[in-house]
């Protein structure tokens, strides 16, 4: 039983984490990002689009298109994030509003295009793109370690990709010059400007990166939850990622912990319902566990939370 909790928990926590990291990049640079939901959806749509059009050109059991679809999802997410960045940075819109608009538009466009493409190219009235099943593997020796061995047992290979991305994004944010500029833009953009660095450019890059990371998370959710792309991807995981990053105090590692709590509370709840042999309607009750847990934890821990100081402010050169 604990095995399923760990395997399912990780399969949920890691995509959530990569989306939350996307959010951290954007918010640490000073751009409030409520658009994660739309970005992950658009990314998943782009990846799925690639699969339905070009997946057939690869040999039957090849996993290459599946991995390529992750790259396409990142590109699609980044492209769509450019629109968000333009709104927030070039057109100086209210960032909260721009985020919500981006979400609404993303859901509208992808739903419409999925239907229209299915109608025009495949002549079927469907709002889904079938994208297949993501490969799972086990690591032979490690998986036999008691308890934590479950981490290495029967896991989606995207877990490895996300862990690798976690390492890269952590290094980029905390150890590179770009990361330092980015974090400074979120706390004291005037100082960054005085140092001769273009604040708007840094923020633009941060937002586009957050789109790419959200796109990866989105396509992973699409694979792990349903093996297809449909408007059901807009389940609110983007908002959950925002909760995770606020809970993680805008830092990558604490956010990782927050995502793990969500993931395990979710899979643990499901297993609990199965264990107690409750009817499936009780799943609705156990599904609330991650959210109730978050609220309770926030009550205890959010006093010391500190958002980036310039978060949500449009950069104004003239301001002191």
């Amino acid at each position, binding site marked *: 039983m604990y095995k399923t909790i760990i395997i399912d928990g990780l399969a949920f926590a890691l995509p959530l984490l990569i989306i939350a990291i996307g959010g951290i990049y954007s918010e640490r640079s000073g751009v409030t990002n409520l658009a994660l939901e739309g970005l992950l959806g658009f990314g998943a749509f782009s990846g799925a689009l690639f699969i339905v059009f070009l997946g057939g050109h690869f040999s039957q059991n090849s996993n290459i298109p599946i991995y390529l679809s992750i790259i396409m999802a990142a590109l699609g997410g980044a492209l769509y994030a450019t629109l968000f960045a333009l709104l927030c940075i070039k057109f100086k819109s209210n960032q909260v509003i721009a985020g919500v*608009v981006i*979400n*609404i538009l993303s859901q509208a466009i992808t739903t419409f295009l999925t239907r229209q493409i299915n109608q025009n190219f495949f002549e079927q009235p469907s709002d889904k793109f079938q994208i297949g099943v993501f490969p799972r593997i086990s690591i032979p020796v490690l998986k036999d370690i008691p308890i934590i061995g479950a981490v290495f047992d029967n896991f989606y290979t995207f877990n490895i990709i996300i862990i690798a991305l976690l390492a890269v994004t952590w290094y980029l944010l905390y150890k590179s010059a770009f990361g330092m500029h980015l974090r400074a833009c979120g706390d004291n953009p005037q100082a960054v400007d005085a140092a001769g660095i273009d604040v708007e450019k840094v923020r633009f890059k941060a937002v586009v990166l957050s789109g790419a990371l959200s796109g990866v998370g989105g396509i992973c959710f699409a694979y792990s939850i349903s093996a297809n792309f449909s408007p059901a991807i807009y389940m609110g995981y983007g908002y959950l990622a925002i909760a995770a990053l606020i809970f993680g105090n805008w830092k990558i590692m604490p956010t990782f912990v927050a995502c793990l709590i969500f993931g395990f509370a979710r899979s643990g709840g499901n297993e609990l319902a199965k264990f107690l042999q409750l009817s499936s309607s009780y799943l*609705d*009750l156990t599904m609330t566990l991650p959210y109730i847990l978050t609220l309770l934890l926030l*009550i205890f821990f959010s006093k010391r939370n500190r958002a980036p100081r310039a978060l949500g402010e449009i950069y104004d050169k003239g301001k002191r």
Partner: protein
Amino acid sequence: MPNKTVKNKNPIFNLLGNPKYQFISIPIFAVIISLILSAIIIFLLGQNPILALKGLMQGAGALPKDNYAAYQGQVTDFMETLDIMTPMLFAALAVSIAMKGGLFNIGVSGQMLISGFVATITIGYAKELNPFISKTLVVIIGIILGSLVGALIGFLKVKFNISEVVSSIMLNYIFQYVISFFIITQYVDPVTRQSRVIGENARLTLMNVEIGPYKMRIPIFFVIAILVAIFMHFYMNRTDQGFEISAIGLNQNAALYAGIKVNHRIIMIMAISGALAGLAGVTFYLGYRASIFPNQLSSIGFDSIAVSLLGNNNPIGIIFSSLLITIIDRGGTYMRSVSGVEQEIAAVISGIILLFSAMSSYMKEVFGARYRKGGK
């Protein structure tokens, strides 16, 4: 010297740039640009954009259709549009007052659901009650439940520093799942898989009223929603509390120094916002609809954020923006039947409108600058 007196030669720029009219000219400009862009998209898809946009208006009863079934007419279609516009208007007012106070109520959907659910199981199923009493009770329950949830969100913010965005999203999920559980285990109609239909006595929309040759629905709360919007306009612009709310929204620290009890006010703002969301909930679940889908939040709560924005967060503006967005949303089905464009394009059109209205402050600035320069 600023030469404001120089008249712009181009009347369009004059209209768009003059700060006196910008509050109305810019939103209209955004809508027109969006409709043109949508028409281009429809054209590129190989369909007739005029036919499609006309279909949208016809479907929502804003233009007459070619033919109608018995008891049906343009007026019945339009009444239905007003019926679904009512909760949209309440929800957008809920968002706007929070936004004025610098708070973001993204939990309108959840507050709608809990108000609608509690009103349904208490009064909605008490079918022997006098219609007037049960309708009044439904409204009171909606207001109380909504404002309690709103106040809770405000309390969590001021007491525990929990962002209202996060707590309302968490509450949305919790309500959605818990209520779904109760509907499925206690109140389900085995045929429709929704909650059992409420009694007509508690329903806030009068159904199948025969007027002349038509059988139509009468959304009695539409008028009340308009009155509430006018009242909110007065409240926000003509009362001390309204000014205090705006002051908090503009700068919390300054408001604090000015002696405003910011924490009290934040809880109050969220309670009012929640009460309006509760009204949206009862007019949606016990008015436009008469039952609740399990495991589903209505999209009104999220669309209302955009409607509020399109209306400049101004209650009077919101009356018009909610009418516009409702017409576009409602007309999609009919548009598909006359033009062949998938009905989801309706959501794309309203999305594009929102996109351009999100740029309104930029447009104001650009056109304003040209206007001051005398159109050079």
